[in-house]
């Protein structure tokens, strides 16, 4: 029998038992709705998280830090030779050393502000590595060759988010820092004061990455080296030309140092890990949703078994006039497949609808929470909203899954129908 006619007949049969068909289909609809809603929200969640992480972590910047989590964070320091070696690795555009000075206090007239970290950098290279982070509220990058300029991060300049800034470009500020003097064992801390001119103040970034420049002040590297009489550095930032190669480049950098003496933060690896975790969560959630689809499958099996019993005589007639077992099997399986298809056609859009509704409700709820204020609150997080993502792959996959489940559960009753003995089936009342 031709496939088209089988489908037409199956469809007629389903239409004949409208209520029963609708209820059976509803089971499939609910299953597919659940799968699609969770999958599309999960997909949206993944994209949101990944995007935010990519904003926070410059994918093309590797951070080389001394020490290792395995062997203890021994304070290794980097020589300029190592920085040079890193620059020479193929794929590395720039490597720039950074010296960090802890706990500095800045004075501008009678205004006083504390910065956690003063970072000494080679401004030209450093801005080249982090071009997006240097947007100035006032002033601009320091002139080259000057050794008395300072750039202030947003939180340093506006310690309590105050309207009035601590300083603007052109102001002279005093920096007091603590350094040690004397040779071991006669080491003593000494507070020193230096004067800098503010070259620029930075706009708020709040990037929740590895480093947050809002809390930093920047001074020229050469100046810091003079103060500390040292040419070594604490961190190296390496900018790579192709982020996808960052993992192999990290290995090349590691090879320059003795084992476990350094660690390299590779944003790509981190993002991959997070992506992997989100994948697992998504898979887990959709698996749970799939259970409802299995329940729907059992519903199909139940209804079809009843249907086969009711239609025993019809099956007998079909067989008497020459229908093959395969034809009967195909007729019933087609009915099951049609229920699966129908369920998918309704369930996929419903699922996306539900996910939009859920994301709307959740974002309203979360929005209310954020207004109470949290430490991590930034303009971006206030707007954070997971929007579900339509993926053709998931839509097609869920539909196929629905059809496969329907057909699998339809197999038993359909086989039962096809194996009926025609004489007995004809006698059935």
């Amino acid at each position, binding site marked *: 029998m031709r496939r088209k006619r089988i489908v037409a007949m199956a469809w*007629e049969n389903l239409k004949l038992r409208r209520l029963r068909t609708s209820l059976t289909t509803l089971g499939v609809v609910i299953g597919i709705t659940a799968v699609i809603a969770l999958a599309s929200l999960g997909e949206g969640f993944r994209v949101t998280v990944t995007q935010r992480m990519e904003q926070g972590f410059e994918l093309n910047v590797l951070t080389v830090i001394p020490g290792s989590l395995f062997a203890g964070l021994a304070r290794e320091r980097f020589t300029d030779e190592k920085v040079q070696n890193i620059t020479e690795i193929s794929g590395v555009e720039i490597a720039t050393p950074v010296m960090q000075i802890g706990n500095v206090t800045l004075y501008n007239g009678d205004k006083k502000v504390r910065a956690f970290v003063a970072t000494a950098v080679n401004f030209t290279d450093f801005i080249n590595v982090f071009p997006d982070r240097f947007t100035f509220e006032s002033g601009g990058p320091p002139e080259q060759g000057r050794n008395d300029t300072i750039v202030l991060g947003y939180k340093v300049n506006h310690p309590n988010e105050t309207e009035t800034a601590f300083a603007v470009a052109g102001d002279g500020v005093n920096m007091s820092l603590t350094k040690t003097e004397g040779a071991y064992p006669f080491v003593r801390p000494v507070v020193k004061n230096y004067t800098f001119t503010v070259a620029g103040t930075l706009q708020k970034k709040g990037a929740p990455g590895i480093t947050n420049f809002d809390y930093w002040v920047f001074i020229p590297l050469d100046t810091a080296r003079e103060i500390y009489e040292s040419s070594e550095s604490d961190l190296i930032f390496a900018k790579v030309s192709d982020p996808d190669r960052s993992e192999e480049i990290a290995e090349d950098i590691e090879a320059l140092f003795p084992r476990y003496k350094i660690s390299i933060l590779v944003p790509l690896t981190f993002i991959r890990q997070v992506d992997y975790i989100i994948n697992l969560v998504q898979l887990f959630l959709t698996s749970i949703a799939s259970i409802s689809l299995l329940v729907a499958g059992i519903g199909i099996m139940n209804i079809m078994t009843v249907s086969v019993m009711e239609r025993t005589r019809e099956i007998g007639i079909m*067989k008497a006039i020459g229908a*093959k*077992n395969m*034809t009967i099997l195909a007729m019933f399986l087609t009915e099951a497949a049609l229920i699966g298809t129908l369920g998918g056609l309704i369930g996929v859009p419903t699922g996306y609808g539900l996910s939009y509704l859920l994301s709307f409700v959740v974002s309203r709820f979360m929005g209310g929470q954020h207004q109470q204020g949290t430490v991590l609150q930034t303009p971006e997080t206030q707007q954070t909203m997971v929007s579900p993502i339509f993926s053709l792959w998931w839509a097609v996959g869920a539909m196929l899954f629905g059809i496969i489940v329907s057909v699998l559960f339809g197999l038993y009753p359909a086989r039962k129908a096809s194996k009926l003995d025609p004489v007995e089936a004809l006698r059935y009342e």
Partner: protein
Amino acid sequence: MAAILEAKGVKRTYTMGRVLVPALRGVSLRVEEGEFVAIFGPSGSGKSTLLHVLGGLDRPDEGDVFISGVGLSTLSDDKLAEVRLRKIGFVFQFFNLLPRLTALRNVELPLTLADVPEKEAVERAKEVLKTVGLEERINHRPTELSGGEQQRVAIARALINEPKIVLADEPTGNLDTTTGWEIVHLMKRLNEEKGQTFVVVTHDQSAAETANRMIYLKDGVIQGVKKSSRGVRP
């Protein structure tokens, strides 16, 4: 020349609970092309079982049935279905039409199973329905037809694939006498005008006597064969 239908030593036993019921205890018969044969006997004589076995709906425990010389016992279920589809037409006491299909669709169904294109199938079905005198009612469903009309649809369905033999199981059994005779007339006419071979099972002796040959079956054994020259009685 091989008979169009031949049964050789056919035995068939049913199990009803724990009791074995021998329905056929060695039946042999031949039907030649163009014959109108009646199998006559009291209820429980094994008539219907014999008809089912002859038509490939049921398999005998022993013996074999040959259609145009081809033994059915060696055929697979699918091949047997193919034989039922193309070589045999069935007519039942309770008509056995599919209730949700119109007369036309019911008649067309065997053609659909035989992969005949829909347009051609509809044409042929209309033609056969005309032959049985139902051209006016082709779009009615079985519930909208009288018993006699339903049986005509069933006969049309049996004829649609131009089978070698039409097997009818008590075709008048569920009809009043007048309508029953109309059906007998119709079958006789098809036999005489088109040379269609008929094997009709009945317990109605007067209907059986219209046949060319009457086979009397009792307790699963053929008790006698009677050639009848009697015409159709109104």
